[in-house]
């Protein structure tokens, strides 16, 4: 039972990671990051129910994660907008003015 949740979460995590590292559109990149964080939530909840030593802590932890993730995305989008203003583009691979 637990293992299936964990596998699920791991898959989600990898998908999120993949998206964050490959998608050109900055918004999608941020969403992929969300996906990663949510996979963690899945982990936590699963553990708090079916873990070795079940406890509520996991669920509380996941609440924290959710809220923090929201804040993170909010800031992210705000910054993205500023960036979009100055570049006129939301393509991640064009955000390379600074290099070497």
């Amino acid at each position, binding site marked *: 039972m637990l293992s299936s949740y964990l596998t699920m979460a791991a898959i989600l995590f990898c998908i999120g990671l993949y998206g*964050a590292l490959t998608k050109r559109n900055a918004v999608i990149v941020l969403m992929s990051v969300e996906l990663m964080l949510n996979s963690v939530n899945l982990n936590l909840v699963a553990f708090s129910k079916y873990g070795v030593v079940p406890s509520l802590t996991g669920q509380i932890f996941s609440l924290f994660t959710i809220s923090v993730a929201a804040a993170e995305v909010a800031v992210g989008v705000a910054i993205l907008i500023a960036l979009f203003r100055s570049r006129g583009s939301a393509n991640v691979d064009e955000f390379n003015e600074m*290099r070497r």
Partner: protein
Amino acid sequence: METVLSQYAWLVPVFPLAAFLILLAFGRGMKRTGPVIATLGSLASLVLSALVLIEQLGGADEYNNGFDWIQIGGYTLTVGFDVTNLTALMMVVVSLVAFLVNVYSIGYMKDDERISVFFAYVALFTCSMLGLVIADNLLMLYIFWELVGLCSFLLIGFWYYKPEAKAAAKKAFIVTRVGDVGFLIALLLLFWYMPDHDLSFAAIANVFGQTGLITEGITTLIAILIFLGAVGKSGQFPLHVWLPDAMEGPTPISALIHAATMVAAGVFLVARTFPIFEASPAALDTVAWVGAFTAIFAASIAIAQDDIKRILAYSTVSQLGYMMMALGLGSVTAAMFHLFTHAFFKALLFLGAGSVIHAVHTQNIHEMGGLGKTMKTTAWTFAVGALALAGIPPLSGFWSKDAILAEALHDHPALFAIGIAAALLTALYMSRLFFLVFAGKPRKGASGHESPAVMTVPLVVLALLAVVAGFVEMPFEGTGWFGEWLTGHAAAHEGTALVMLVSTAVGLLGIYLGWLIYVKGAIPRDAVTKRMPWLTRLLERKYYIDEIYHAVFVVSLRAIGRAFDAFDRHVVGGAVRLAGGAAVWTGRAATRMQNGQLQSYGLYAVIGLVILAAAIAGRRFW
């Protein structure tokens, strides 16, 4: 009889040293007084050394005194002087010649602007030479040995603006240095092999006197190495090349350093350390053969030279060869005797030559001639010197050379033959020289004028000495006191009658030949040149020794240097650059990661994590 003056023998070198220091300090100012001071210095040492000699002749005991120079742990190196008959005699010879040369130079160098420097150098040389003579141990002797080398170098290069002088000076220093290294190593060997590391001659004498203390092989090695030093200083083959070139120096210097004193130091060294050689027959043979070969070899070259001083230089080399041969034959007496007489007549010859050059301003004998009329004193004194050198009785050279030849005949006929041949050549080239310079009629209108008294007087004095010096040791009963006094045993006198006849005959023959060729012209001068030009050229080019040395040593050293230079630049430096390059290259790679793409940054991180985990945790699950 107890020793009074001998205790003060250490003052002998001090006088010239004082003169040197004075000249060094205030020299620039005193062109007039400087020479006088130097001369007085040498005079002082002459007087004192003469007194010491008299005391020694009076049969005073040998005297030795010294102090510790360096003291390290259990070892000590000392400096000190000792007065023996040998050193007493040498002191007189050296200071006498030095004094005369000083006097002579006052006139000869009159017009040179750096005359005070010249006299300073001469004073320093005198000091060092005397120090060499009275040194009581090998180390101290080595020190002064090097110092006389330095002075010789300075004086050869005295006219520094002449490229030839520069080259000659350099050559002299370096070539003798080669010998000196041998000497140095001999010194090291002795230090570690001598019981309680005593380098004094006395110790050497009694250690090598008794057999078995030091093995045959080591003894020979030490002897040969010491001899190497002597070879360098005394211009023996194969290190003779510097001496003829040294004639670039002022002529009085050639007389003092390169005829009478320094070049004889090699002979003196061997004589001083003779116990070592006696302990090793092999070494003795080496010395004898090298000497003999040098004698004939140099004499043959002398015949073909045109530069008056070079001829004399080669004759010096040849005569030194004689002395070495004598030593090799085991007769210190004969060697020192010849050294003694040779000092006078060769100095005389050089000073005479100097006087000639002073007059005609050339050194090429073919450009001289007929000077006998204009320069009477010079001519006569020169004649005396020449005859003495040619070994015509009753002049000094005859007796000393005779002593050597007698030794040779006594225990080495082959060497005797070589000696005779060399004697013939000697007579020949000396007559050639004399007749070309003084006989005949002036060529190129080079009609000289006699030199001032300050130069001729030394000539006369030396001429007298050249005449009488031989009488101290004549091969007749009761006259051999010199050898007795000097070394404890007289020179060999077996069959001297024969020797005397032969050598005289040979000498006369040589002169006669010379007369036939260069005065009477009965034999055309180019007789030899016509038949075998190669021989003449070979002699003129001094058997191409210089060329060979240049090719073998100079060129190869330069090549090695260049090779090392390349190695240094490319291999050693390259390695360093490589190390630096590695760092920079890593940096480049790291910088290339910074492509501004945040997603690649993330990728690096993930890859890094995976690799890390796989590598480290992976080990466990392997």
